[in-house]
């Protein structure tokens, strides 16, 4: 009976975690169930204008979706494709450029690196180009981590120059870069167009023509509190944004968005007066999901952006929960509770072993009694400091003395033994006894020489492919990596087979039958 209970519980627990891994948290639901963001107005091939926006399912890849009058929202305009490298992991943040271009940010195969991609309207659908049109910058540049936003201005009549303002990332920091092109496909980077005014990070930039001038609106994730929106005049020749003027955001009365958070903004159209421009703004809801709203930007200063009372597109239906993830926290807690019981059993065992030794005065009873003294002292002072974390009295000082003054130095002493043991082990390992040990010693010597200046000095007169650092890098990162991966594959399959046997209780029962 006991065994049957164990087998059943093991099977059910394993089945739960197996299904959690295999199944998504929710089934069905809208393609923008995690939120809608980064929208653009478009009119390609349609009589009626539509809105293209970014959306994703929870834990899913982002896609560019359509929102058109009389149509069901959420049809995919541009989605990630396994056939393309540069938007393999997602397509988002589109900008329509009349008449038939859609610039967007593709998340690449290489760890979701964001790049500027281009799709063209052909045969009634958006057809992405096979490769990105603007890659990330060289290491050390302002867009070395990728380009997360783009705003393109097509040339006016009689002009040949395409202009693009991009938010380039260097780590987490976003800055506005400027690029030009003669065809809108092959771009050349120019100087930096704007830095974050409050020392934060620029999230979006949107540029439009207003009369004879070019104007830009940026959204900043500021280090300090302040309005995230700002407007600036743009120098047509250099692309540089002039002094930024803050835009005051006005939320409609009774709005549920509190506190108001604006993540990005794109101009959908300019004018007419007194409206300076109409914006498509991404805001966050109190539950963290994003939605798109229109806002009217009135001419200033002071510039004022009034958000529409209702969202243009909010997060879609989340679908039906599989319930597996909803109870995940409780199941994990149960595992922790069972583990806590086991810790208790371990401590009881330890106390029994040392207790018997002390009571029976067996050899080593004095050392065993130290266990009880140490355990009591640490338990008392630890509980005391947890109950009174801010106190600076005998309790906290004793705890500090025991933990930082005794336990940690003892651990460090043990760890420092490794230095001596490493030398001893290396001596044995590098003795040349047979072919294998000779190869090992030679590889080790090569790796060591390749990482110190003398290795470079010894062979710098040789052609680069046979210099020690080059050979070292090849041995370390090609041959060694190949072996590591081969071993890891074997471990993965072995661990999986063992897990399967444990899950189905094939393992222990089998071993009990061994004769």
């Amino acid at each position: 009976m006991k065994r049957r209970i164990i087998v059943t519980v093991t099977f059910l627990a394993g089945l739960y975690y197996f299904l959690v891994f295999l199944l998504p948290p929710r089934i069905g639901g809208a393609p923008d169930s995690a939120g809608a963001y980064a929208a653009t107005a478009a009119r390609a091939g349609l009589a009626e204008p539509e809105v293209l926006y970014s959306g994703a399912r929870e834990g899913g890849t982002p896609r560019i979706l359509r929102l058109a009058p009389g149509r069901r929202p959420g049809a995919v305009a541009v989605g990630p494709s396994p056939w393309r490298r540069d938007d393999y992991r997602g397509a988002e943040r589109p900008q329509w450029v009349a008449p038939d271009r859609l610039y967007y940010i593709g998340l690449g195969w290489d760890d979701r690196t964001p790049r500027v991609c281009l799709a063209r309207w052909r045969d009634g659908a958006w057809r992405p180009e096979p490769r990105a049109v603007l890659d990330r910058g060289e290491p050390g540049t302002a867009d070395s981590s990728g380009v997360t936003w783009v705003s393109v201005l097509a040339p006016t009549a009689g002009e040949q120059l395409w202009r693009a303002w991009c938010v380039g990332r260097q780590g987490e920091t976003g800055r506005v870069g400027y690029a030009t092109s003669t065809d809108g496909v092959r771009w050349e980077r120019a100087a930096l167009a704007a830095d974050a005014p409050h020392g934060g990070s620029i999230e979006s930039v949107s540029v439009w023509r207003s009369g004879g001038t070019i104007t830009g609106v940026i959204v900043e994730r500021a280090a300090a509190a302040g309005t995230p929106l700002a407007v600036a005049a743009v120098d047509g020749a250099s692309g540089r944004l002039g002094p930024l003027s803050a835009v005051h955001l006005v939320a409609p009365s009774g709005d549920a968005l509190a506190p108001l958070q604006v993540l990005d903004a794109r101009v959908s159209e300019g004018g007419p007066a007194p409206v300076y421009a109409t914006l498509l703004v991404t805001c966050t809801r109190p539950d963290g999901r994003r939605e798109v709203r229109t806002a009217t930007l009135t001419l200033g200063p002071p510039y004022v952006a009034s958000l529409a009372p209702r969202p243009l597109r909010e997060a879609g239906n989340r679908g039906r929960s599989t319930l597996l993830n909803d109870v995940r926290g409780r199941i994990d807690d149960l595992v922790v509770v069972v583990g806590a019981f086991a810790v208790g059993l371990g401590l009881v065992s330890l106390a029994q072993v040392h207790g018997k030794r002390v009571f029976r005065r067996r050899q080593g009873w004095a050392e065993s009694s130290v266990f009880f003294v140490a355990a009591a002292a640490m338990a008392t002072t630890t509980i005391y400091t947890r109950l009174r974390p801010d106190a600076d009295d005998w309790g906290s000082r004793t705890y500090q003395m025991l933990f930082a003054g005794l336990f940690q130095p003892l651990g460090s002493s043990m760890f420092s033994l490794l230095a001596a043991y490493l030398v001893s082990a290396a001596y044995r390992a590098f003795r040349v006894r047979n072919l294998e040990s000779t190869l090992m010693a030679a590889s080790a010597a090569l790796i060591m020489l390749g990482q110190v200046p003398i290795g470079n000095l010894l062979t710098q007169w040789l052609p680069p492919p046979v210099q020690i650092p080059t050979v070292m890098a090849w041995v370390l990162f090609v041959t060694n990596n190949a072996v590591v991966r081969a071993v890891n594959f074997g471990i993965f399959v072995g661990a999986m087979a063992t897990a399967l046997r444990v899950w189905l209780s094939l393992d222990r029962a089998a071993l009990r039958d061994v004769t």
Partner: protein
Amino acid sequence: MEHANWTAAALILVLCSAVLLCIRQARAGRPVFVRRIAGLDALDDSLGRATEMGRPILFSPGFGELNNMSTFAALAVLEYAVRRAARFGLRVLVPVPSAPVFTVVRDTVRDAFASEGRPELFASDDVLFLSGDQNAFAAAVTGMMERERVAAAFYFGSYGFESLLLAETGQRIGAIQVAATDSFFQVPFFLTACDYTIIGEELYAAGAYLSREPTLLGSLVGQDVGKAILAALLLVGVASAAYGALTGAGVDGFHPLVGLLGR
């Protein structure tokens, strides 16, 4: 927690099916060939030597928790080693760094002694929960090895830096040492300090190799089938990426076929 994509889900299901199918075939009596693993053969020799010397052996099931499959692989070998030791009347010291693992280890050792008809050989003082701290655990185990002058030491499972502290101590006291670990960065330490080192997946084959039990042997064949599937996928991916790079169709190792497999 990360959820499986369709490719990963399909691959897991295929690999699991292969293992289960091979277990079924092995249980039906299909003969299975297992190549020789010197380190595991040495296990019996080490026990014999310990018997001659009249000293205990030490078996460490590693630093892994119960969610680590290498711990279960180590438990299979522990059970075998304890059964053998019971026949020779040997003491087996089993230091454990994790409380949840300790409870399982204690039951395994007790059951193994009992199943060999020697329950009186089980000494609760010899199966010890010590400490989850690596330094403290290493200090306690090395002290135990020095005091008891163990004749043989077996390190099976996952390890951290304590691997070298344990193995060098064993080397110093002249114990025969066999190590098997899937902790890749500890392999060099074990290689230099132990008499036999079993690397990576052979740890998971140890239970089958020692017991020759059909279920475990079938599982071993299933693992080989799984590796063959993975190797085939690797070859397809490498060929596609190379073809893409040579023809200019792919960049940085990317090829549509590689992309499709990654979905």
